[in-house]
């Protein structure tokens, strides 16, 4: 259905091709998963399928791409619209209508379908993706998962034979991601749709894939069955890493498969459980002993008719990493904005490092609390990394070079002469983090730091956060990424609808929740291990 014959893509001004001699064949009804580090060419590969590369993006494409027998050489993206449905990374920026129904109909209008056909297909698609209740809602009022499903639905109404999705679940909470993936599953199995999807969060999708296309970073690809590729791919979900640790072959891809194999491992680790539990509580009490860095008491916040926070109380301590979790729109960002003094809660008591964020001078406040916003790029405006560091020093009235020194400690590989826009997501995050940290705030807040980060960048972030906590900072991160939370955090606070519904040690809160439990916890339950590292340490103790 999708065929790449010796395809190479070179963008104008680039030294090396983004894709190099790619051969690829995906049959009808198969689901292909594209994996690879950031910048390896995942988006380029996906956009080449319907000819956006090179018709829209520019650049040169050698070789040939054919979809359903039609070559993108002769057919522009708009001509292939009846064969290929594309859902780009950010559904919001691709929306053309303002109501769900109109959005679904947009593609069909341009194909010239008769109004009765359009009407029927819209109804079918609403049912298929569970959007019926949302049909007349304004797109701007939908949650992330709902938007993603609308975007998929909009691509589906034209009845394409191929669906291409770029990171469909990366911005979604676990439940929203489940919904989207369940919908994709149905499309592949019931309608025989060919699906090509790129995703960083492998733990969510790899078990559904028929083929995995691994981009190695130099533009070439390796293709194979998921088990084969996952056996040695440097990017792997926790369940695969656990399999490598335990030496299971072939590698299990889902929690279910892994659990069947894990009986022996669980027996082996049985004696280690008590020791682990005491170590955990010791760590927690050490964190609690030093007085709190920040105290929030009964915070309430409203935006117009929407209540964002209803009486949230939270204490944050030094040496502690707290993960703030909850659905999209549960109030995570609002709580962080209150703590950082960006939003004023209507009522409640708030104290950060002895200051009241509502009244403190911003210049003093940044020395008590630092927030890395959801889009780190919002903080940046200079034309090079070096200039960015210099102006940050000027802003804070600090000695020249102090921001640069922080950046050097966090991520020595960030090139100083590069434009911030041309950095990878991970590097840009590190730059924003350095700017915020240069003021030496005790409390560090991060809003969704893992968006668009690959596993390597995430591992590095975990290392950085752990070092900061060890140095006495208090760190709060709002995130959907349970694996990141399991690896990095000491405490989890879960928000639901503006209220704090859980607040406790990671093991206790995460392991007991079906939606939030990390893969290793699901495999090893009822034992308390959350990450592959936990298991490795326990194995080390066992002998």
């Amino acid at each position, binding site marked *: 259905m999708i065929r790449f014959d010796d395809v190479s893509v070179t*963008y*104008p001004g680039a030294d090396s091709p983004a894709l190099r001699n790619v051969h690829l064949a995906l049959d009808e009804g198969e689901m292909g998963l594209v994996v690879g580090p950031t910048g390896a060419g995942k988006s380029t590969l996906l956009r080449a399928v319907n000819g*956006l590369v*090179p*018709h*829209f993006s520019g650049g040169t494409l*050698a070789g040939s791409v054919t979809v359903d027998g039609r070559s993108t*050489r002769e057919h522009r*993206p*708009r001509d292939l*619209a009846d064969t290929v449905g*594309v859902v*780009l*990374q950010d559904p*919001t*920026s*691709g*929306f*053309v209508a*303002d109501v769900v*129904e*109109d959005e679904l109909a947009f*593609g*069909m*209008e*341009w*194909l*010239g*379908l*008769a*109004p009765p056909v359009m009407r029927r297909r*819209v109804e079918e698609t609403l049912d298929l993706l569970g959007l019926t209740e949302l049909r007349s*809602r*304004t797109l*701007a*009022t939908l949650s*992330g998962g709902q938007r993603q499903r609308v975007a998929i639905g*909009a*691509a589906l109404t*034209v009845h394409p034979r191929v669906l291409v999705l770029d990171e469909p679940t*990366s*911005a979604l909470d676990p439940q929203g991601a489940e919904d989207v993936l369940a919908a994709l599953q149905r499309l592949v199995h019931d309608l025989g749709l060919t699906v090509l999807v790129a995703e960083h969060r492998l733990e969510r999708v790899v078990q559904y894939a028929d083929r995995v296309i691994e981009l190695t970073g130099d533009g070439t690809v390796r293709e194979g069955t998921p088990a084969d590729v996952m056996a040695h791919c440097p990017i792997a979900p926790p369940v695969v890493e656990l399999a490598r640790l335990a030496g299971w072959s072939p590698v299990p891809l889902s929690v279910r498969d892994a659990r069947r194999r894990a009986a022996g491992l669980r027996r082996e680790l049985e004696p280690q459980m008590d020791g682990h539990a005491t170590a955990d509580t010791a760590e927690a009490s050490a964190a609690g002993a030093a007085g709190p860095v920040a105290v929030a008491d009964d915070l309430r916040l409203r*935006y117009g*008719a929407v209540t964002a926070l209803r009486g949230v109380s939270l204490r944050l301590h030094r040496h502690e990493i707290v993960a703030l979790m909850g659905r999209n*729109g549960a109030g995570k960002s609002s709580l962080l904005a209150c703590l950082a003094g*960006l939003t004023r809660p209507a009522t409640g008591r708030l104290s950060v490092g002895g200051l009241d964020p509502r009244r403190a001078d*911003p210049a003093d406040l940044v020395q008590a609390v630092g927030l*890395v*916003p959801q889009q780190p*790029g*919002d*903080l*940046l405006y200079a034309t090079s990394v070096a200039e960015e560091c210099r102006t940050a020093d000027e*802003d*804070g009235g600090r000695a020249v070079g102090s921001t640069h020194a922080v950046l050097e400690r966090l991520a020595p590989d960030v090139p100083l002469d590069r434009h911030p*826009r041309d950095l990878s*997501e991970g590097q840009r995050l590190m730059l924003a983090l350095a700017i915020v940290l240069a*003021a030496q705030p005790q409390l560090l807040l991060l809003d969704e730091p893992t*968006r*668009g980060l690959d596993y390597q960048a995430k591992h590095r972030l975990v290392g950085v956060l752990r070092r900061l906590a060890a140095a006495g900072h208090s760190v709060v991160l709002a995130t959907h990424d349970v694996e990141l939370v399991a690896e990095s955090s000491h405490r989890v606070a879960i928000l639901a609808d503006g209220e704090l519904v859980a607040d406790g040690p990671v093991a206790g809160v995460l392991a007991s929740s079906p939606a939030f439990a990390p893969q290793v916890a699901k495999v090893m339950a009822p034992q308390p291990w959350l990450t592959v590292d936990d298991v490795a340490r326990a194995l080390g103790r066992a002998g």
Partner: protein
Amino acid sequence: MLHPGAWWLWALGLVVAATRTTNPLLLLAMIAVAALVVAARRTASPWSRSFVAFLALGAVLVVVRLVFAALFVDAVPGATVLVTLPELALPEVVAGLRVGGGVTAEALLFALYQGLQLMAVLAAVGAANALADPRRLLRTVPGALYEVGVALVVALTYAPRLVEDAVRVRRAQRLRGRPPRGLTGVARTAVPVLEGGLATSIDLAAAMDSRGFARAAAVPVRWRRLSASLVLLGLVGTIIALFALLGGGLLPTAGLPLLAISTTLAIAGALMAGRRSRRTRYRPDPWRVAEWVTAASGVVAAVGVGAAAALDPGALDPVGILPLAAPAISAMALAAVLVAALPCVATPPPPSGVPTSTSRPQQSRAGASEAGVYA
């Protein structure tokens, strides 16, 4: 949801009314009417917040006009000198222009009234902008104009999001400590906002292209060129005619026929071009009673104020009256303006959606603009 065309007709009525009078009370009434309708009927969509921006722009213009009127003493004769500024000696070449000198109350009032007139026009346009979803309006544009449509959709999405993004970026900039002020502050906000906006627009264009936007049936090139030039010619003519009629630079006897001819040309071109588009409509916006009422209320305002201006020029154009006096008010004109507030109650209320912050994830590479080629 009301047909966006109805909102624009209504706003156009207010614009015409505003150009017919400089009576400050009437103008303030128009601004109030626009604000009232926006407050009552705007939706939760991002562009519905743009009304305030339009009002702010109008206020700035009023202030600028006042400052200029105070600095440059122009031709308005006046006896009531409020304050005397030091006069600047200018060379002979620019004789006739005086900088400084006595600032008269008449000159200031003249500037204020003219500024208010501009503000009322902006308020009407801003109201239409806030009430009518630009994307829906675009759907009603004849399928023939789709190339223009691409550009318009991108521009229209870009503009209101800029406001949202600017707020977000300014907030984020506070996290760097000393919030920058003045020009540096503007530059620091503008750079990330423009970059983000550009990336979003490119994404949108890519998404629209993938979804079949601007698929055309095979039509001879000559036919296409002919229809396109007809549409363009017609639109330019219409704009000139409207401008001349509203500005009063052209007699209605010349302006009206020009308007009629240009509109006919534009429509003919659009119809011709429309034959090549195979585009169909999904549940087109209906034009019902509420739409008629809204459009009619705008027309009533325009006609009412226009008629009052013809009957009682003194009351509607107080600038002409030199002795300072409180502006009189024409009951007929005021009533006509108040009719324009009818949509507050005569239209269906907006759907109550829960607005959430629109999230935008990371930017992908801002794609090169030139089209790609195959090796």
